[in-house]
């Protein structure tokens, strides 16, 4: 049996691709070496942000995503039901985000950043300390600058990915957990399916959406793709009185997102979840797929969070987990056909924003796939942009890559 499209990876990006393609009438099969939504999607947070993005293509995509999320949630809840014994709630909450600078040096860069974002159409409101404390009464009053971003929202990533998959199944897609892609089926240059741990699957097209493992899978398919892991750790407190009302970040979050520095970076993102726990994220470390606990990283995160919210010093952290963000050297996602290999499509590299950008990326890919008019400009995300092709030359040759080095992490706890 031949399918139209095989999607490799059932994270939020693969799920979104599968839904969008299946709803356009294509016969889709989604493969994941493990369970659905068990990779990075289950090991991050669910911030849907415009506030952390510089003006540029990623911000444009994020703004499109911010507009799309409410209608998407409504569609999914409509389709799947959301009562107590129906589909688990997606916990979509357009609660808004507050970015606070805590140092004198951090104040002006934050204001400048917000001004640039306003120029790009972001609702970024500079507010004074009194206003910030009105929004977040428990915030450390020793702030140097604060910006309010009403467009920021959050969602439960695993529920969202599972909902996209459930919707894809309703549109005829097949989801096969526990099936690992190990190689390519080729007809000359053309990719005509995948070899898997459960036999060959011929397909007219293959969508590579394997998150931080996309580079490894690409190598197995015989192409170079510079997608690398950037580790992040998160802390989760026990349930507490509902004190943190919005998403609150220290201004450093902005700087950390843009940098390619391998050294440990932390910045605080503090948010309450629907369960009453508080999530504190996150670190950015370039340590490959090393999944060992590093307490020193937790310390940095804790110190920043306590500086933002002094009352958190008494909060008990009951869990920590870590994940690997899929990133590309130029820090932009890759979405579209791979002109080097007919039949291969790519949707990955969303780094720390894949939950927010996943759904619109899936729709963008489906637009390109079916020749529809794309809702946003796809050019900045194309596979054959210089930053990708250039770095791809430095990727290990396909035959050098050892799959075992890069197995999905076992040492990671669970989100929220």
């Amino acid at each position, binding site marked *: 049996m031949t399918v139209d499209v095989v999607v490799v990876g059932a994270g939020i990006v693969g799920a979104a691709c599968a839904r969008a393609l299946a709803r356009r009438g294509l016969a889709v099969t989604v493969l994941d070496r493990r369970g659905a939504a068990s990779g990075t999607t289950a090991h991050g947070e669910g911030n849907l942000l415009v506030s952390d993005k510089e003006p540029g293509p990623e911000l444009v995509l994020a703004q499109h995503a911010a507009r799309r999320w409410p209608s998407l*949630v409504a569609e999914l*809840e409509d389709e799947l039901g*959301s009562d107590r014994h129906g589909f688990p*709630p*997606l*916990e*979509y*909450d*357009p609660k808004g985000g507050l970015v606070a600078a805590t140092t004198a040096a951090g104040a002006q860069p934050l204001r400048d950043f917000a001004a640039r974002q306003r120029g790009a159409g972001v609702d970024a409101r500079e507010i004074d300390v009194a206003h910030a404390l009105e929004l977040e009464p428990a915030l450390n009053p020793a702030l140097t600058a604060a910006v309010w971003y009403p467009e920021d929202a959050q969602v439960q990533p695993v529920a969202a990915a599972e909902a996209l998959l459930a919707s894809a199944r309703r549109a005829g897609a097949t989801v096969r957990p526990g099936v690992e892609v190990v190689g390519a089926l080729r007809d000359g240059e053309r990719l005509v399916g995948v070899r898997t741990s459960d036999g060959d699957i011929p397909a007219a097209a293959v969508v590579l959406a394997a998150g931080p493992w996309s580079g490894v899978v690409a190598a197995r398919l015989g192409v170079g793709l510079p997608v690398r892991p950037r580790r992040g750790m998160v802390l989760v407190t*026990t*349930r*507490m*009185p*509902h004190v943190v009302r919005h998403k609150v970040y220290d201004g450093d979050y902005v700087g950390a997102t843009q940098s390619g520095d391998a050294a440990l970076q932390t910045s605080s993102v503090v948010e*309450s979840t*629907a*369960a*009453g726990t508080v999530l504190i994220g996150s670190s950015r470390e370039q340590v490959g797929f090393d999944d060992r606990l590093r307490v020193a990283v937790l310390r940095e995160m804790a110190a920043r969070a306590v500086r933002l919210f002094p009352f958190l010093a*008494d*909060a*008990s952290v009951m869990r920590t987990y870590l994940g690997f963000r899929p990133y590309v050297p130029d820090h932009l996602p890759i979405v579209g056909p791979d002109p080097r290999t007919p039949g291969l499509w790519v949707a990955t590299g969303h780094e720390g924003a894949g939950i927010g950008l996943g759904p619109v990326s899936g729709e963008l890919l489906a637009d390109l796939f079916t020749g529809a008019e794309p809702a946003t400009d796809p050019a900045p995300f194309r596979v054959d942009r210089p930053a990708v092709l250039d770095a791809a030359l430095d990727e290990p040759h396909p035959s050098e890559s050892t799959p075992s080095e890069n197995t999905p992490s076992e040492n990671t706890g669970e989100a929220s």
Partner: protein
Amino acid sequence: MSATSQGAGPRPLTITLDGRPFAGTEGQTIAGMLLAARRRSWRTTSVESAPRGVFCGIGVCFDCLVTVNGSRDVRACLRRAADGDVVETQHDPLPGVTS
């Protein structure tokens, strides 16, 4: 519930739970003191607002959490009572879910 005497015996102490005094002796845990006074539950759960007290008795289940002298999430079955401890029951309602 019989106290054992030996020599001078353990010193008596008093703690309060939500302002109500409870008497016991040095060496008892907070849960032990409350149970000895026939108090069976203290925490109130978040979803069903149901009462909870001791379940596992050895610090594994976290059902018996109390606030002690302003510090949250103390396992009453593990923490030895100290004279004058101000113990408060915990109830952390769920925040409203919008979706």
